[in-house]
């Protein structure tokens, strides 16, 4: 009887959390639709973005056989599309960090998970919509070769989302306390621009700098986000493929560490700020 009541209460709790996530999504959607010119410019940006990257890649097109067995344009367009898909996960929670909304939303008594997921949901859904035209333009205009395995893509995206949400929560938790730049995320982002392999395969770092330098890349969580997504979209790996599974497992280690750590740091940040009396500060 007690277990049944407990399960019922849990189910009610989940329903409330889902409703809260839905509330954030609809609020952000409604708000987004009021910025008409922004809507148009965002759509235009998708096309301009993919075309500019595509033109650059066509100019320097070369084989990326070492890691993904594909050409550079496929590698780059897929990378840009992934970047476009995942960055909102990092930006979403931080965008809510202002004194006018944070305090009020926290007084509704909502849970941390619903707060975090709710704040990224609309941005993420929007980026999924923009992800598709990126790929369509890539395939039909720049002849990108996709070799995607859908179940593997889904798993890779889930692992990537966990890694990035973990990073977002770490950054947000620290920023709630410092009210300024988060040194951890800043350092990771600086390293990412060189080492994460957004625009080139990380193994080329060994030839550009010195042998072994690409090891640094594999210590960065973002490298694994790009790597797992590219593997699943460019090399058609099945989920039973041991090579892919090993890579997935390595990436998952980051997810398993960063997600709970991020969650704890976010909660620590909120509590610390409550103790300092600075929650409403910006």
């Amino acid at each position, binding site marked *: 009887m007690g277990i049944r009541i407990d399960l019922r209460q849990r189910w009610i709790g989940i329903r409330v959390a889902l409703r809260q996530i839905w*509330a954030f999504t609809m609020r952000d959607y409604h708000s987004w639709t*009021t910025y008409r010119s922004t809507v148009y410019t965002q759509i235009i940006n998708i096309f301009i973005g993919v075309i500019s990257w595509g033109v650059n890649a066509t100019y320097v097109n070369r084989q990326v056989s070492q890691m993904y067995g594909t050409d550079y344009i496929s590698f780059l367009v897929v990378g840009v599309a992934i970047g476009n898909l995942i960055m909102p996960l990092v930006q979403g929670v931080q965008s809510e960090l202002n004194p*006018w909304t944070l305090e009020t939303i926290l007084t509704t008594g*909502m849970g941390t998970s619903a707060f975090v997921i709710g704040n990224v949901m609309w941005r993420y859904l929007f980026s999924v919509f923009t992800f598709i035209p990126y790929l369509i333009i890539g395939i039909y205009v720049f002849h990108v070769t996709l070799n995607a395995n859908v179940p593997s893509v889904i798993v890779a995206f889930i692992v990537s989302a966990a890694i990035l949400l973990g990073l977002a929560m770490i950054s947000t938790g620290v920023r709630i306390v410092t*009210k*300024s*730049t988060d040194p951890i995320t800043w350092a990771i982002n600086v390293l990412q621009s060189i080492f994460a392999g957004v625009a080139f395969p990380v193994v080329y770092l060994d030839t550009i700098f010195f042998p072994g330098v690409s090891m640094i890349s594999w210590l960065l969580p973002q490298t694994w986000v790009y790597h797992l997504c590219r593997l699943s979209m460019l090399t058609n790996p099945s989920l039973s493929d041991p090579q892919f599974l090993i890579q997935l497992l390595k990436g998952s280690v980051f997810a398993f560490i960063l997600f709970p750590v991020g969650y704890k740091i976010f909660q620590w940040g909120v*509590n610390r700020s409550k103790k*300092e*009396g600075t929650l409403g500060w910006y």
Partner: protein
Amino acid sequence: MTAEYAIETIDLVKRYPTRGPTMGRGGGRGGGASFGLFLDIIMRKKRPFIEALRGVNLQIKRGEVFGLLGPNGAGKTTLIKILCTLVLHDEGEAYVNGIDVKKDPHAVLKNLQAVLPESRGFNWRLTGRQNLYFYALLYGVGKKEAEERINSLFEFTGLQERADDGYQRYSTGMQRKLLLCRSLLSDAPILLFDEPTAGLDPPSAIEFRDMLSEVAKERDKTVFASTHNLFEAQRMCDRIAIIDQGKIIACDTPDNIRYKAFDERILGITFHEVIFNEGHKKMLDELEKLYGIHSATPEINSDGIFEGITIRLDKDMDLSSILEVIMKSGLKIKMINTQEPTLEDAFMEITGRHPERRMRRP
């Protein structure tokens, strides 16, 4: 602790870290958040602090409209933020409907809603209705129920005509009404307001105050409001507490606070015109000899006309003996005024900010 009270605090203490070298007292929050602060926290460095609350004890009954008065920096907002779980206290205890605010903040927030003017939390691009709907879902209210509650709240606050206008088109008064709607969405039994009418013009302030009183009486809510507005407190609150430098220094009904603050009152008596003479002088001497009279000052104009007397007397003194002495002297009384202390007088007296004690006509 008992669940007898809607709100109860026991020896509540709150300290804020500051960059300053000294440990001060009183409300204002010190120190800024920064990367340096982050390093201090990591290195567990002890920093100087100021005490915003210094052992606050309050008991607020269910259904009461309770006002918290205090000068700037007295600790009002800190106390409200502790009660709505936005600030963690350092020592003491705080309970909302018997629930410890530190131990179970989620349960506390089911019993209490706070309206903090500086943290509006509304999206400027959405309509009033969309904003309320968003919060209704965050409070866990179902879709249909949310729509019903929102419509009824718009009707209550008179915002129904403007419900579908963008929030950015709302006047300050309308924005404040929307805040009230939001606080009532979750149907929490306790409502906290920090400076509820600050920034409103007088008609809007009166309207908002009336709405709060109606909410408390007809919807059976406990209302806890901090304010600088003494007139508002006197008019709206069943009881008030005065907080200064982080301590509650008085807590009672507005009338009791007014009377307890002073041990005397002032009686003003105006006479029909008569030239001041020796008989009147004797009458004044006789008055001053009466037990309970502190002073009797005649008001004589430049033509020597005896216009009236101002008498300072014990606040509980029987006035008949005074009138008897005056009548005996043959003076004809035109008007009698009892000059009552206002809540503002009492507040200034209690907080020690009275430049010189003075009474005002009601």
